[in-house]
């Protein structure tokens, strides 16, 4: 396991600006999701990923189009990073027929299968074996695809995490385990309920897997770490555990004001906002303020349009509740 302190800038300004704009798009989509929720247009619950953008964008930039991504119920950022539009995400949240999952999944199950984003899973840790299975399939088919499981720190105390790390290590599967450690399992600090300091990385050694602990708010660091791990996986050298340290800007879910987090901790992390970090790096690469502001403005326009598009979209035909259980499109369980 290594803890990297490297702060050099390894990408060019154009690429970093692209990543910045993707992060801005996610941030503004999450803000829209929050506002729509507060105004009663999103029902149920939402788990916003504002603050986690660099993990999704940095990781996605290191993947091929045909690679597989598996996310959690806090997964809007991964859907967008893999190419889902804010309009189809917001439409799903707003129970509209044009949503990613035709309004059958909701916020916790965003999926964009044709872009390799194979689901958002709402049972903590359940998707780790599923990602390993996709990696196994890639290995069997000889495609050199990789699968990435993104999960929270809380998932590292689930049995499936340990079963999967072991099996993936034994089978040398092309799967990456990326922990978004935001310090809180839900409301409880992860440190209060976990026997080791780094819930994912400290467990990797038990399964003979390499691990890295990185600044998950530095999109470049995430990208570079992922790129190296992905390359190892494609070459048949097996899984890597990456623990990306990050922080939620909102509470755990829609009803949580996150009052359990100390003010100085929140302030510290707000100064480490992944968008701020990227802005500073862009500035140091000579990108002027106007270009960065223009990226924000473009993201803002897309999200504004997406909100309107989602609001204007129709609700699903109630009859569609009774389709798509089976592969033939039907739901018949008896004759």
């Amino acid at each position: 396991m290594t803890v990297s302190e490297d702060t050099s800038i390894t990408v060019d300004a154009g690429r970093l600006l692209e990543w910045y704009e993707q992060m801005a798009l996610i941030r503004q989509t999450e803000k829209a999701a929050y506002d729509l929720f507060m105004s009663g247009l999103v029902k149920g619950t939402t788990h916003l990923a504002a603050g986690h953008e660099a993990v999704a964008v940095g990781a996605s930039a290191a993947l091929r189009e045909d690679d597989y991504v598996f996310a959690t119920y806090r997964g809007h950022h991964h859907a967008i990073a893999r190419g889902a539009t804010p309009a189809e995400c917001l439409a799903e949240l707003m129970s509209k027929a044009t949503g990613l999952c035709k309004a059958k999944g909701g916020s916790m199950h965003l999926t964009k299968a044709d872009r390799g984003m194979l689901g958002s899973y709402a049972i903590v840790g359940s998707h780790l074996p599923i990602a390993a299975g996709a990696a196994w399939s890639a290995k069997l088919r000889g495609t050199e695809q990789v699968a990435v499981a993104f999960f929270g720190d809380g998932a590292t105390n689930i049995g499936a995490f340990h079963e999967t790390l072991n099996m993936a290590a034994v089978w040398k599967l092309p799967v990456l385990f990326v922990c978004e450690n935001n310090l809180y399992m839900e409301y409880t600090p992860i440190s209060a309920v976990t026997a080791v300091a780094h819930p994912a990385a400290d467990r990797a050694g038990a399964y003979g897997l390499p691990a890295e602990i990185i600044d998950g708010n530095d999109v470049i660091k995430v990208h570079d770490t992922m790129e190296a791990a992905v390359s190892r996986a494609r070459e048949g050298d097996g899984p890597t555990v990456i623990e990306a340290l990050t922080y939620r800007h909102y509470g755990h879910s829609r009803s949580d004001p996150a009052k359990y987090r100390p003010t100085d901790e929140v302030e510290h992390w707000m100064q480490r906002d992944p968008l701020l970090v990227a802005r500073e790096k862009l500035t140091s690469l000579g990108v002027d303020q106007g270009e960065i502001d223009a990226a924000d403005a473009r993201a803002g326009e897309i999200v504004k349009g997406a909100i309107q598009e989602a609001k204007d979209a129709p609700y699903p035909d109630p009859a569609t509740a009774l389709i798509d259980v089976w592969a033939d499109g039907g739901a018949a369980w008896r004759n």
Partner: protein
Amino acid sequence: MAELITYREAVSEGIAREMRRDSRVVCLGEDIGAAEGVFKTTTGLFTEFGPERVWDTPISEQAIVGAALGAAMTGMRPVAEIMFSDFIACCYDYLANEIPKMRYMTGGQVTVPLVIRTANGGGLGFGAQHSQAVENWVFTVPGLKIAAPSTPADVVGLMASAIRSDDPVVFFEHKGLLASKGEPAPEEHVVPLGEASVVRSGNDVTVVALASTVPTALSAAEQLIAEDISVEVIDLRCLVPLDVKTVLSSVERTSHLILVEENPYQGGWGATVASIVADEGFELLDAPIRRVAAECVPIPFADALEDEVIPTVEKVVEAVRRLSAF
């Protein structure tokens, strides 16, 4: 006449046939490879198809069925083994929350062509944690197909359908039937999912059975000839899709229905069948529907105790006798 084969041999044969015709079919499970399965139901697969297609796993039920799901979503046709069906409880998240819901909750974006095979049922003195008939655990979740064959030929034919199905199928192999013998399956034998079989014709009472309770019901029917009671026995073969039509058309002639289930009375599959017949075939009935199911206690160890709990020929004979005298 061809030589008879065992139910156990039919399991390996059914899987091997599909592995030969489709390279996407791969197997994973505990001790299924070099050891050929603790029930010897994967005999020959490792030798014929090698470790690339027959994967020995650690004792990690969640990883087994979770990996099968991920592989199924990405172009393979995995056949996962859960050694004893009781262990489904160890990975029930995948049977209850993941596998049956993936297609639906993604708005039809993915398909899940996988099979989970598992050794089910009692009668062998394995005690409370290795003897349960748990088809009702699976039957309670919409989105899973369920096959539970009673003969070697049906094992092969239903295995073909299960593996070729684009939907997830839980395939119950009954431990008590593994040594039983029957006609071998013809070449290219395929039994469609959701078609019950009338395995004995009769006029007085319809007995609907599944897996181990099929031979139980047939033995009971044989005994009842002496009492001049003519019993029709239906082997459901699958719980999902459920072949209600075959049951209703039999009841139309016999007007008497008994359901013989190895799972507990409490929450057993017979309750669903009974409710359908009560709803849609009420006017066909001349007597109440009766259920012979396991007692609602854990499965005990001793033979004398286990026989007291699970359906036996004597219990079915008695139930038919009483119902025909109603």
